[in-house]
């Protein structure tokens, strides 16, 4: 049987950072974002209320200002901070563990996906895949809740991406998530 898409690439440090950032986005739940926004709003609101009640001390004004700033950072920039932090750690991890990153080949067939590196080979039927997450830069294929393989889109043409997307949509349905879609 011939594969309809075959992709080979060597993982670069930015590929790895993109993968980790996408995995973090995939794991972030809506309720977590909502709770952080509520806390941020509460901090801003309470800083204004406290300032209204007692703004005669410079120290207290500074404290209320810090509270308001913390609220704005949490409410508006939480995801950005998490993404930055995840990417930094991923880049550091890559720089310290370069020997772990090898060239890999993934091939898509009608009934399975194969992965191959110098030390690993697998043929995974679509029904055995736990879920797939796609964002603007990577496809992440989960073989369990904490085990995943990724394919960077920079190694794929738009046509290949579309073919992969179609097969995931037909074979995986609910298990296939795209960034922004829940």
């Amino acid at each position, binding site marked *: 049987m011939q594969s309809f898409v075959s992709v080979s690439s060597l993982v670069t440090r930015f590929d790895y950072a993109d993968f980790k950032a996408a995995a973090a986005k995939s794991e972030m739940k809506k309720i977590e974002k909502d709770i952080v926004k509520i806390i941020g709003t509460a901090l801003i609101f309470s800083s204004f209320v406290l300032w209204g009640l007692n703004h005669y001390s410079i120290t207290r004004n500074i404290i209320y200002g810090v509270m308001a700033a913390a609220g704005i950072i949490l409410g508006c920039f939480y995801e950005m901070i998490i993404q930055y932090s995840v990417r930094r750690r991923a880049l550091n991890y890559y720089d310290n563990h370069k020997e772990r990153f090898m060239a890999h080949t993934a091939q898509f067939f009608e009934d399975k996906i194969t992965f191959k590196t110098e*030390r*690993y080979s697998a*043929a995974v039927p679509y029904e055995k895949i*736990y879920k797939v997450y796609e964002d603007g830069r990577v496809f992440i294929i989960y*073989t369990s*809740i904490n*085990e995943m393989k990724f394919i960077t889109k920079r190694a794929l043409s738009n046509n290949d991406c579309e073919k992969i997307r179609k097969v995931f949509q037909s074979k995986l349905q609910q298990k296939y998530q795209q960034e922004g879609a829940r």
Partner: protein
Amino acid sequence: MPTFYEGGAIEEVSQTLSENEYTQAFYIGQSVISPMHTKWVKTGICLSMAILIISLIPLYKSYFITVWIPFCALAVAVLLAFYFFFIQPKDIKKWAAQIYCTSAFLSIPQKIEIYRDSVIIKNEYEEILEYWTDFAKCVETNSFFVLTGGRERDLLIITKNGMNATQIERISKHFSNEFALRYMKKKR
């Protein structure tokens, strides 16, 4: 593949891990990451903090009228000790059970070939080659050999269930030679 110089397999093991075996081995793997990862150390630290807080209450009382802040801190320390000793181990095992249940590869029969410098793990869908130098630690207990820190999969579990004493002895000796200071034997 193992090189020519490695010779034949030292031992070949066929196994199918159960959920219970996986969760137990996972928990063992987690607890050997560092001393801080054991429940005794974390609980001990919390209880030490609680004792320290109790001992400082008379000093606190000499400066302040009420003592509700040290009592709150004491309650937090005791609750944390309770959490680390009783609740967190169960959470870790629940997480391990989730990993096992969602994985296509952990619950199916696998064959493990142990060579001088490497190991090959095969099942119906995949084949993995790992070198002993890839692993961070090897822990032997009464029921398992647990190897942590692998390149392709973080945990390699070899269950003693189904092995005879000679096989266990051979594998144990091989791991203690290969891992040296990274090898530990636990009594449980």
